[in-house]
């Protein structure tokens, strides 16, 4: 579904991604693990078409996305959950959810979103930035589900969430994965990552240095945590 080949990205003189290659199949969850500054967020932005300095190939459903602008990529079915949660202060919670167009074959209805995230229903008329950090995180995830995106690009969706909510997000990701949605996930929480993902790419200095299966991550958890500085 998503294929990235020979992707390089840079900010001015500084190279952020070097020759990155990875694939995500429908119904597959793949994580990007790495220290801060390893290039994880830049990779998601590059796939979304938001990073100006990039070369290499990004294709979706066999179609080369080339220089397709971000809004066209979204309409093909890419859903971005940005690392800062992307809540609009000047839009209510409901408006935040209904802003993007439905892009996939199975967009969630607003009712389904509110059923799944009752807290968003309670706060539906509040400005989105008045929600707590965790609630904003929920909102960002709910928004791409409502779009019906077929590939979710989630940048640390569990950051700052209470353990109960982390479990909840894991349930939801497993649920959409089982329905054929692909997920590329930036994640530092290894327990969460191994609970939802199939494969893990370890990024260091802009390169994929290792690709690990769940059992390998569990086996080397201590070593990886030390490496990640968590």
């Amino acid at each position: 579904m998503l294929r990235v080949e020979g992707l390089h990205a840079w900010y001015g003189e500084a190279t952020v991604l070097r020759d990155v290659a990875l694939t995500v199949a429908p119904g597959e969850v793949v994580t990007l693990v790495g220290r801060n500054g390893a290039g994880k967020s830049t990779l998601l932005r590059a796939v979304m078409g938001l990073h100006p300095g990039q070369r290499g190939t990004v294709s979706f459903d066999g179609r080369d996305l080339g220089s397709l602008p971000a809004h066209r990529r979204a309409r093909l079915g890419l859903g971005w959950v940005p690392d800062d949660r992307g809540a609009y202060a000047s839009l209510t919670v409901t408006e935040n959810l209904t802003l993007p167009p439905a892009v996939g074959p199975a967009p969630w209805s607003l009712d389904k979103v509110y059923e799944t995230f009752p807290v968003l229903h309670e706060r539906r008329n509040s400005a989105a930035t008045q929600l707590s950090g965790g609630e904003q995180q929920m909102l960002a995830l709910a928004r791409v589900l409502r779009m019906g995106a077929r590939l979710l690009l989630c940048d640390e969706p569990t950051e700052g969430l209470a353990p109960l909510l982390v479990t909840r997000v894991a349930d939801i990701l497993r649920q959409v994965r089982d329905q054929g949605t692909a997920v590329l996930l930036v994640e530092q929480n290894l327990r969460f990552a191994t609970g939802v993902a199939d494969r893990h790419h370890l990024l260091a200095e802009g390169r994929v240095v290792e690709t690990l299966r769940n059992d390998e991550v569990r086996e080397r958890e201590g070593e990886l945590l030390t490496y990640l500085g968590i």
Partner: protein
Amino acid sequence: MSAFLQHTFDGLVSGAFLALLALGLSVIFGMLRVVNFAHGAFYMLGAVGTYLLLTEFGIPFWWALLVVPLALGAFGMAVERTLVHPLARLDPLYNFLLTFGLTLVLQDLVKLRYGTTSSPYGTPSALTGTVDFGLFDFPAYRVFVLSFAVVACVAVWWLLGHTRVGMLVRAATERPELTRALGIDVGRWVTPVFGFGIALAGVAGVLAAPMRAVNPLMGADLVIVVFAVVVIGGLGSIFGSVAAGFGIGLVQAWGESYLDQWPIVAQTSVFVIMAAVLLWRPAGLFGREEAPA
């Protein structure tokens, strides 16, 4: 008391012009990140256009109030497409310089054809009298201007707050990049929004024709005050622009009336307020700090 009410009313009327102009400037800035220096020139074109429609074609005020904003909106869209858009990728300073240059060109074109003397424009016959408010009378035309501007501001606020287009504009104003990543073609809305802001300047220009001297330079001084208004209200903030517009109108009117011994104080008060607001709240009274993306 009666004098105070008189000054207050006058302040609200001049505030109405500031609010309409600041509103357009603010909507344009929000969507394009372009500080449209030519806003005053478009206001002038609105007034000159109203005058020309009457003198050249015998088209009266009420038709001008409809035709001139539409025509200027279309002209604004053409300017955005041909001049502003090609510079959008560069430093915002380029578009500031462009609109500054455009101001000079538009002013001089009008000057070349009609000179710099002010032309009188009669008050529409339906609005020549005064309106009796009990304690005092106000000129009917000014009451109309104030009411019209308030209705226009409320209508714009409603459009932005309660329609899908309004929601897109708010989203794109606050976080353009994220909005694109959510599947919205922000670029498609840029030209109409620019035209809309210019049309609002046109409305202000039409309203100004019967009560202000119509001449090529009428927008030049006003636009400076409008900039101060927009900065005070918060660049990109719709409510802030309107509130600051009326507020500054009042401050100016009271200043001119009660500080007439110290005209310098009255004339500079707007900019002193602006400086104070900038020190206290750099994003303006109702502005938000720029979000990262």
